[in-house]
């Protein structure tokens, strides 16, 4: 009996000894919670996953973090809906034990996710969610490396003033993003003294036929039309605006960088010509060595220019790896401390998370450019930069009459 007990104890000690190095080498898990199916902007989510995976490969190829531990990505689909986003985060934290989450795209989803992240005490990174209130809440575990909507609106108001537009119409989806942009534009029209009339229409994101709203806008005779749809609604607005004859006669500004993606021309064909759109990355931009290395690898691997979502997700995972090393720990609270106390190399410059006023809380903002396509099937790399003036490569071109 005594011998059996001794053998059992020895075996247990041996097993525990063997398990220690195995535990030390356990990977550090980072969640990627992003839209990968409708009604979310699934194309955006795919680029975000692509960028995050490239970062994990690069980190692991260089020996991992904390002296040899690999980064393991756990990808979860939020489908662009708050309930799936919250369920996804809960699963990532409680089941997969991730130390941080990147990839948030839709502001409405982020609002649900960030509140839960605060309860679960895990840092969440906003990759392309831009609603002002997301960082205005001053939450401990929310970090953003993307533009915020007031800055987006300030820029398009300056452009409106520079171009001398007198009648501006906005058609916006009824999400936090769409409604937030409309409210901010109204506010800034007054504060910036923009000498133009403004017409705004908010539509239900689930609606597919926007003909009556577009006829109403066309009848109002705007000289600028701003398309605030995300994913499928952006395409539906563009197609139907063309069909009722609103565009391209009236210049259209698309509120984000979807036209930079390869599927833009496949979905819109010639109807996409003369659209102006906002981007945060352009191939002519000078990047940091980290961003440049990513761009080179991306071009080799995918034979196309990287899209901003991929670039930003890549930089966020790299930044998290740096923070884990700086913290010398994989505990979320230590990572948060490191994020706040360290400067990091991003894709376009140095990233520092300070706790500023209003929405500038744990926030880093990339540059914004207005690009215009002037020919059907024009490659993204050849689109002209029409704003801001210091980076301009061409003037806004009006479409010839149909």
């Amino acid at each position, binding site marked *: 009996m005594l011998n059996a007990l001794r053998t059992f104890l020895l075996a247990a000690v041996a097993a525990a000894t063997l398990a220690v190095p195995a535990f030390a080498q356990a990977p550090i898990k980072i969640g990627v919670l992003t839209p*990968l*199916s*409708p*009604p979310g902007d*699934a*194309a955006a*989510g*795919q680029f975000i996953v692509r960028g995050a995976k490239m970062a994990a490969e690069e980190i692991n190829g260089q020996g991992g973090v904390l002296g040899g531990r690999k980064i393991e990505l756990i990808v979860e689909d939020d489908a662009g809906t708050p309930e799936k986003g919250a369920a996804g985060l809960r699963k990532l934290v409680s089941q997969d034990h991730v130390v941080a989450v990147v990839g948030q795209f839709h502001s409405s989803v982020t609002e649900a996710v960030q509140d839960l992240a605060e309860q679960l005490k895990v840092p969440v990174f906003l990759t392309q969610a831009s609603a002002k209130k997301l960082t205005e809440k001053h939450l401990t575990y929310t970090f953003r490396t993307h533009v915020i909507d007031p800055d987006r609106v300030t820029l398009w108001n300056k452009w409106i003033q520079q171009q001398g537009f007198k009648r501006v119409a906005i058609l916006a989806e*009824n999400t936090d993003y769409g409604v937030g942009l409309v409210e901010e534009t109204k506010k800034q029209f007054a504060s910036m003294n923009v000498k133009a009339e403004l017409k705004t*229409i*908010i*539509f*239900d994101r*689930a*609606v*597919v*036929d*926007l*003909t*009556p*709203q577009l*006829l*109403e806008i066309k*009848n109002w005779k705007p000289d600028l039309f701003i398309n605030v749809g995300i*994913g*499928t609604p952006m*395409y*539906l607005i563009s*197609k*139907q605006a*063309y*069909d*009722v*004859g609103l565009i391209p006669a009236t210049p259209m500004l698309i509120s984000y960088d979807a036209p930079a993606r390869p*599927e833009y021309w*496949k*979905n*819109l*064909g010639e109807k996409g010509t003369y659209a102006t759109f906002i981007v945060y990355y352009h191939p002519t931009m000078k990047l940091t060595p980290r961003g440049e290395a990513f761009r080179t690898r991306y071009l080799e691997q995918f034979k196309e220019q990287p899209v901003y979502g991929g670039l930003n997700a890549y930089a966020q995972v790299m930044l998290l790896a740096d923070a884990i090393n700086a913290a010398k720990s994989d505990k979320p609270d230590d990572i948060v401390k490191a994020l706040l106390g360290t400067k990091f190399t991003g894709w376009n410059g140095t990233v520092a998370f300070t706790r500023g006023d209003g929405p500038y809380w744990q926030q880093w903002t990339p540059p914004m450019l207005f690009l215009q396509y002037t020919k059907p099937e024009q490659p993204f790399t050849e689109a002209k930069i029409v704003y801001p003036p210091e980076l301009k490569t061409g003037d806004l071109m009006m479409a010839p009459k149909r």
Partner: protein
Amino acid sequence: MDAYLLSQYVLSGLVIGLIYSLMAIGITFIYGIMKMINWSMGEFYMIGSYVQYALLATVLGWDLWYLALPLAMASVFLLGIVVQRFLLRPMYLGGIERRDEYATIITIALMVLFRNLAIVLGGPNQFSPKDYARATSLLTLPISGNRMVALVGTVVLLLLFYVLTRKTWLGRAFRGAAQNRVGIQTAGVDVLRLDMLAFGVGVALAAAAGALLAPAFLVYPENGAISTFKGFEIIVIGGLGSLMGSVVGGLLLGLIEALGSVFLSPGYKDLYGFVLLLGLLAFRPTGLFGERERTV
């Protein structure tokens, strides 16, 4: 507001309403014969749009959309027959007590299955076939070639459907089954085979709507959801089981949505149809053309 603009709103509402009615006819036809609601109707719409896109993008080329349309309808007709034969037919055999619940569970499961299959096979992104025709105008309304094709296609299909149900032996059998499933069997009609055909024809109509609207409303895994939603509203407004009710209900829904979204608020576009529906249910519970059940 000037009369010209008002006429544009009215026309745009009527056009979309008529196109939606194609979907509603499919739902009400299946209900009329089989006495079951097909909750996965929108997914057959979605499959129709995918088949149309796939045929045009890979085999036929963009110009032959009019050939792809009957092929898309035929493929979905066959799929409908398979679904009916293996998943729905068993509930009509052996005297299953809770047939409605069975049909609800099966068709909701199909809805989830088909949507996820679409994501697995085609990816989550949206696709768009090239335009079917050049932009034109309908009276005062500037209208895309795609929508004009969808409108004409809907009218043609409605006429064909009318001829099928009113002028052929099969149509008489369908109408007989809709009136009395036991009675039609005494006339020697195989009602189970009729169910299979009815289900196939109903889902093929939904596929036609999906294929016709593919360039206007895009092709993606959830594109059928809104059509199912509208289809059910229309059949309740028009009267469950009434083909004429589906057409009139569709036109009415399109009109009220177009005018409500312009004169009230576009943010509540889907609400206006429901207000109409609730009002109708309060004063005319059978819908516009529905009939009260006659029992002895």
